[in-house]
């Protein structure tokens, strides 16, 4: 961390001294998560979800490694091997339910974390790289979650795999070969199951690697804060440890309480009944839906029902679905408002509120059957989604008059001006 008032790491023991000279891992930890990282003092609870997402990634990796010890990635026995885990492996039911619901909790945390970034302008200079790496993490997490859902080889696993890989078929010329390459065949079968299992095991470690870069990039400018105003002096900050470790610590407890309620008392509430039926290529479920965390994007995919000139509606839907997330890569350059925090942008605040409702509506429509009136509603909601990022934000940064910003973080918290003498 570049702030000159950051506490310096001093090894307390001779061994610590020795280690610090050879391989300064303790210094690295001290400077990234310890007292050596001065953090804005005014972070609200929306800043707790980054570390929570990281912890749930660890939960997923640990439970996943244990599951992989008992699971068999073969289309003939995958379904039964999952039931073997549920019935015969000691506490296997707990590990599996924790893994299945842990994915949902990871996405809850990551969505709130992204929403925090969107509202408080955490994607703006000088933090663009943190944001870009975050979008990469999100894309990798989606791929990982999708492939993980295929592994139990139930009806929804099979048909989900068929629908999602079928999207690539819409790409002109190369679509069909790409789909066959992804599946290792013409339809999901043993080859697809095996490669999905292999990649499902690999990608979380890639995510962990990108998270390291995400945190590295964070430590160059330091954390954003609810005012969006730059840190100006030592009074504006507190050391990450113990202040934010304690704050993250107790909210982790709250999150785990909710997680426990889900895992032990409502373990199948977020799942789909059809996935307890073994995969059957000859019987299509009445309606195929992905897991809840994909519903908004699924709604955008299905919102395109009319061909545009020579472009088929299906291809438009696929392009739009990918664009809906890829647009985040351009966000730092689409929104040119110099004010970071939405707290001081009266019009942005309203549009952001609409966006949140809009995404919830999209989510609801994505989970509903593809019939009217849900199609109409998701068309209007998708139109707003694109308009928000591509039209409203670029124009708003010119048209909006932001409210005056506080002089410093300290002043906004205590009401007294920051004394620069330190």
């Amino acid at each position: 961390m570049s702030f000159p008032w950051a506490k310096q790491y001093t090894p307390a023991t001779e061994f610590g001294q020795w280690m610090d000279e050879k391989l300064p891992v303790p210094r690295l930890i001290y400077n990234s998560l310890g007292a050596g990282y001065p953090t804005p003092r005014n972070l609200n609870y929306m800043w707790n979800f980054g570390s929570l997402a990281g912890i749930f990634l660890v939960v997923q990796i640990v439970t996943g490694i244990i599951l992989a010890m008992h699971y068999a990635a073969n289309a003939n026995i995958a379904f039964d091997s999952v039931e073997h885990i549920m019935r015969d492996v000691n506490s296997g039911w707990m590990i599996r339910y924790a893994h299945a619901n842990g994915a949902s909790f990871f996405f809850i945390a990551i969505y709130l974390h992204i929403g925090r970034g969107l509202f408080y302008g955490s994607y703006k200079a000088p933090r663009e790289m943190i944001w870009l790496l975050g979008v990469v993490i999100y894309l990798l997490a989606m791929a990982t979650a999708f492939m993980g859902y295929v592994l139990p080889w139930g009806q929804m696993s099979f048909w989900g795999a068929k629908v999602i890989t079928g999207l690539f078929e819409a790409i002109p010329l190369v679509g069909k070969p790409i789909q066959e390459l992804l599946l290792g065949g013409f339809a999901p079968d043993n080859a697809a199951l095996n490669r999905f299992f292999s990649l499902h095991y690999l990608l979380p470690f890639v995510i962990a690697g990108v998270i390291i870069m995400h945190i590295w990039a964070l430590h160059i400018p330091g954390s954003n804060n609810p005012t969006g105003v730059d840190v100006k002096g030592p009074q504006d900050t507190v050391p990450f440890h113990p202040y934010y470790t304690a704050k993250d610590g107790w909210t982790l407890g709250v999150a785990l309480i909710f997680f426990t309620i889900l895992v032990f008392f409502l373990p199948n509430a977020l799942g789909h009944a059809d996935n307890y039926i073994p995969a059957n290529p000859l019987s299509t479920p009445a309606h195929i839906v992905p897991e809840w965390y994909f519903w908004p994007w699924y709604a955008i995919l299905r919102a395109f029902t009319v061909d545009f000139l020579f472009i088929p509606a299906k291809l438009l839907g696929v392009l739009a679905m990918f664009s809906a997330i890829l647009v985040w890569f351009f966000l730092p350059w689409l929104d040119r408002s110099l004010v970071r925090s939405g707290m001081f942008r009266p019009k942005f605040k309203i549009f952001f509120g609409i966006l949140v409702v809009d995404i919830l509506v999209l989510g609801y429509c994505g989970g509903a059957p593809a019939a009217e009136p849900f199609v109409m509603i998701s068309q209007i909601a998708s139109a707003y989604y694109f308009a928000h990022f591509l039209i409203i934000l670029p124009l708003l940064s010119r048209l909006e008059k932001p409210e005056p910003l506080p002089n410093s973080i300290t002043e906004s918290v205590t009401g007294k001006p920051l004394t620069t003498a330190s």
Partner: protein
Amino acid sequence: MVRIIGILIGLFFSGWLLISSGMGAIEYFSNPPAETAEHEFHREAKEISFASDGPLGKFDRQQLQRGFQVYKEVCSACHSLRLVAFRNLEEIGYNEDEVKAIAANWSIGVPDADPNTGEMTTRPGLAADKLPLPFANDIAARAANNNAIPPDLSLMTKAREGGAPYVYSLLTGYIDPPANLPEANQPGPGLHYNPYFANLNLAMAPPLAVEDQVSYSDGTKASIDQMAADVSAFLIWTAEPKLEERHQAGWAVLAFLLIATILAYLSYRTIWADVKAEKKKKVSDA
């Protein structure tokens, strides 16, 4: 440049979506979709509660044994329970000798190689065996059941929306087709009308047709309703045998987390006390 391209793409996507939505709306309101008979006549599962419901739920072993008896004497003629082993029956209160006897006396033998000739044959069941399947393969199952495969019941209460109440409703829900049922939805040959089934007609004939179809050893009156409820409860157990363990562990984990969270909260308050105190002055100064 990014913004100009962005605005153009945005105008295209949003514009086309709004046009599509308008076209959809015109179609929807000028030509509203007719309600399907499946939707009109379909009924939601009946309300029924089981001892295993809720976070404190436990199995009623007496009921599970009755349910097992219904499965054994009625359902098992057509429906497999392939994920359940005879040894698992000890979990619903049978002792080791009873389980061995149940396995040995099961109506169908377990397919195995003859130890002397190596020819495929059947032998009496052992406690370690999974319950034997009623049909040798899917083709045999189809041939014996009007071309419909009787599904495996092991996970049935988790594999259907509505769970055990749905199973109970289906078993007790057979009625004569209503007079105003459209021709297309009348039960065809070999089909039976049941408004709890998604497409209203199913191939399974009413399995629980008369009172006292099974005679319960614990003296419970075997009404159709009672048999349906018992077998549904039994199928909750087959689908989720670790339910009691799960509920118990859940309370222990919650108790631990509650205490840990309170302690973590208190330490958070202590650590932040000095920083918070500065913040409070703002209020008193004002």
